């Protein structure tokens, strides 16, 4: 038997998997099914790069939201500190004025 004949025999055409044409037509009409073989018909195939892209997008959105929250909290804390410092300054000033007033009254009563 010649190698040519053996090759022709080994490389004969084989039938496409059952339902192949239906899956092609489903993709033509906008479906996402790709594989059939071994009972996987109808399952949408999520390409790995789409999964990675979606993960990155989600991470970026969560990261952005987290950073925004952190900046807001820092701004609120700084505002709170400034408010407390102003109140403290007013309180010190008030106490000093009261002390001075008491001193003036003491001098005038003598």
């Amino acid at each position, binding site marked *: *038997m010649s*190698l*040519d004949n*053996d*090759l*022709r*025999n*080994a*490389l*004969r*055409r*084989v*039938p*496409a*998997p059952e339902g*192949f*044409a239906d*899956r*092609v*037509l489903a*993709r*033509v009409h906008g479906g996402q099914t*790709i*594989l*059939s*073989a071994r009972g996987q018909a109808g399952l949408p195939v999520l390409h790995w790069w789409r999964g990675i892209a979606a993960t990155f997008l989600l991470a970026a959105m969560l990261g952005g939201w987290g950073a925004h929250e952190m900046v807001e909290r820092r701004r609120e804390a700084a505002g709170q500190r400034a408010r407390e410092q102003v109140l403290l300054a007013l309180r010190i000033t008030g106490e000093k004025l009261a002390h001075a007033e008491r001193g003036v009254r003491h001098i005038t009563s003598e």
Partner: protein
Amino acid sequence: MSALLTEVGESEDILRRAQEGDGDAFAALVSEHESMVFSIAWHFFSDRNRSEEIAQDVFLQLYRNLGKIETRAHLLFWLRQVTSRRCIDEVRRAGPRRISLDDAPELPVAPSSHDPLASRRLRESISTLPPRQRMVVTLRYQEDLDPSEIGRIVGLPVNTIKSHLHRALLALRKKMGVET
């Protein structure tokens, strides 16, 4: 002769109707050529899922390019060309991802007088050839094409095809222990 002409005429008519948007005609084209397209990918990869994915992509591409197909002969050439280039591109892009033929299911083929184990051993040897040689051998023996036709399909000079074929057959003879 007249039966052949009728058949060719019908095929041309199916192609024309598919180009005009007839879904049934396109389905008929897929059914007519699915075995050829799938088999080229199958003999190249020995991986059923990968072969089906590529064959589906080829028909999807055909659907988008139906307007460029001129005749039935052109359709056959186009399908062989796109399938073979897609297979070689896929190997370059994703690597061999070759599976052992022990893990590959036997696909149903018409019964023949040949030894199925010898055919399996031969396919295993073919799967170890470099991608271009593997494709040239597949087109030569699956599709019974001569080197000039293969050259037009894969876009290489005829002498390069002859050289690929020569080297591939030498390697296969060596692997199979066939006397030269």
